[in-house]
């Protein structure tokens, strides 16, 4: 009965308060890693290219000549005001980078989730429904391989298969579309729709197909496995047994009673995949030259731009923590059993 004793508001407040230390630990980790670790950002980037005076000036501008604890509190204060600093290589605000490149990552991941759900849920239900049949074995094998196959390799294979047909395999849109669509929301797909140009919208959508399928295949493996196991569990549950005993047709039992309850945990699963999706997005963007945040991060890493890496990694950390919070809150509202 202890599970039911906690009230929903109390749980929500507790859960939200827990976010603060979580983010603090992550931010401290990021700071320690990127600031205290060997090497100085300015020298790492401009070593040999700038004279000592110019290096000292840059260091001063970045506040790197201040004591470490001053830098640390400055960093925390900036992040609290949602300011993630500036890049060193092209002197952009990280917020601008997130605004300009975040849209591409957003549409990629949303598209991938839609594809994964469309594929994963029906296949998972089928596999669970016809346990140990040939479809089940094939679907489970697909689940194993989708986990074992590197996402960038899957992307490469799709490019090789698709490129003879002339279907777009690189970038988010053709050069013409990118040039003509006016920027409103910084999300190219939305901007193309707003512009009212059917050709531009179709072009952007076409470019989305391969990257979304690639990232979606990775996620679908997870969905298949979990939906299948959940269905097996619900099919053996008492209330399903009771429905059978009442003489309800097996088809109805499965559709009405088992499927629905098997799908509830999918909400949790979606939330738990945020970290996996971010990792997958970095690799997918690299494979398809997708102008998203992951691609940008790798670019800045290759330029050894410490402040940019720190800013973007900080942003990712905040996203992960906030996403897990949202999932827990949604779960608590949906499922009254989850309160502690």
């Amino acid at each position, binding site marked *: 009965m202890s599970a039911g004793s906690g009230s929903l508001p109390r749980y929500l407040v507790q859960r939200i308060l827990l976010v603060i230390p979580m983010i603090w630990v992550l931010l401290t980790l990021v700071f320690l890693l990127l600031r205290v670790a060997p090497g100085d950002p300015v020298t790492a980037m401009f070593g040999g290219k700038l004279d000592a005076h110019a290096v000292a000036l840059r260091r001063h501008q970045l506040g790197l000549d201040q004591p470490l604890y001053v830098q640390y509190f400055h960093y925390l204060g900036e992040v609290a005001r949602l300011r993630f600093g500036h890049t060193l290589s092209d002197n952009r605000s990280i917020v601008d980078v997130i605004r300009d490149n975040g849209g591409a990552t957003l549409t990629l991941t949303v598209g991938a989730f839609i594809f994964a759900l469309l594929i994963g849920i029906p296949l998972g239900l089928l596999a669970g429904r016809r346990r140990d049949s040939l479809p089940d074995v094939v679907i489970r094998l697909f689940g194993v391989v989708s986990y074992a196959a*590197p996402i960038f390799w899957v992307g490469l294979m799709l490019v090789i298969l698709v490129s003879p047909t002339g279907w777009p395999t690189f970038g988010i849109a053709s050069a013409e579309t990118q040039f003509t669509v006016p920027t409103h929301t910084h999300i190219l797909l939305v901007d193309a729709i707003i512009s009212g140009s059917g050709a531009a919208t179709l072009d952007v959508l076409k470019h989305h197909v391969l990257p979304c399928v690639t990232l979606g295949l990775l996620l679908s493996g997870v969905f298949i496995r979990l939906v299948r196991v959940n269905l097996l569990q619900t099919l053996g549950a008492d209330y399903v047994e009771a429905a059978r005993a009442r003489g309800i047709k097996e088809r109805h039992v499965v559709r009405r009673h088992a499927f629905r309850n098997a799908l509830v945990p999918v909400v949790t699963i979606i939330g738990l995949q945020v970290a996996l999706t971010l990792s997958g997005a970095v690799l997918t963007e690299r494979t398809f030259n997708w102008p998203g945040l992951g691609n940008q991060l*790798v670019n800045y890493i290759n330029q050894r731009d410490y402040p940019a890496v720190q800013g973007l990694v900080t942003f990712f950390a905040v996203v992960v923590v906030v996403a897990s919070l949202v999932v827990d809150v949604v779960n608590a509202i949906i499922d009254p059993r989850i309160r502690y």
Partner: protein
Amino acid sequence: MFGRLLSPIRGTTGFARWILVAGLVLTGVFLVFAIFAPWIAPYDFNQYQAHGARFPKMAPPSGNHWLGTNDQFFDILSRIIWGARTEVKVVLISVAFSVVIGAPLGLVSGFVGGWWDRVMVFLMDAIYAFPSLLLAIVFSFLLQGPLGGGTLAAALSLTVIYIPQYFRVVRNTTVSAREATYVEAARAIGARNGTIMTRYVFGNVIGSVPVIGTLNAADAISTLAALGFLGLGIQPTVASEWGYDLSRALDDAAAGIWWTALFPGLAIVLLVTGLTLVGEGLNETINPALRKRKLIRAVLPAGGPLTEDEQEVTA
């Protein structure tokens, strides 16, 4: 010695045995590649000519080069075989390091308890919640400077990801072992904390490590390849690495050159699948919860499909 090594296989039946054997065979092939690379591989991993003649550039698979050559004139089969050595080396180092760091931390944390334990759990959970690839990216970014882009830098970047997993498992088993009767008995005869931890608890909590080890090894292969693909892994001059080869294949893919991408990727898929199967198979043999299932099945007269369902589900 050999008989003891094989005992887990003999203890299995049916599907679990099949999984374990298939996994061991797959993993074994790559281990043989790794150990005997200089004798098996037709050429060196960065060899672009033989007998005074240059290899052809991006040649499709043929009698001379079974899996073709890439844009740097290298023989792809040789790079895959040498690559196995790189992967095995990195994975062994990273798994060893994460066990050596994570397991004692978990042991102490679970045994001591109190605020130290809480802080450690919170810290490890924070690391665990972070996208593992990003963590590896940040670490290889940092380590490439001081350590160079070699095997050690790559292995240490992976180590960080897996420490929390060993910490968690060992800590949780330690917490329950701490209250066990044999620990109480040890305390009663006046054993000190250090002695109890190393002599009594350690042996009992270390049993779950091999399973996580193999599953981590599978994950480590994927992550190492991902780092290589992003250009953050092992530098191409140091050793052959499958992920790096795939990043080079990126430019060829749209031109219809498939062999530079297909084969290194297949190597990754096969090795990762092999290690995953070994992990799953070991899990079924070592994990007491799953072992019990087998006993139930043996007792039941001709277990119908329904009982099997239930058993699998509870597992």
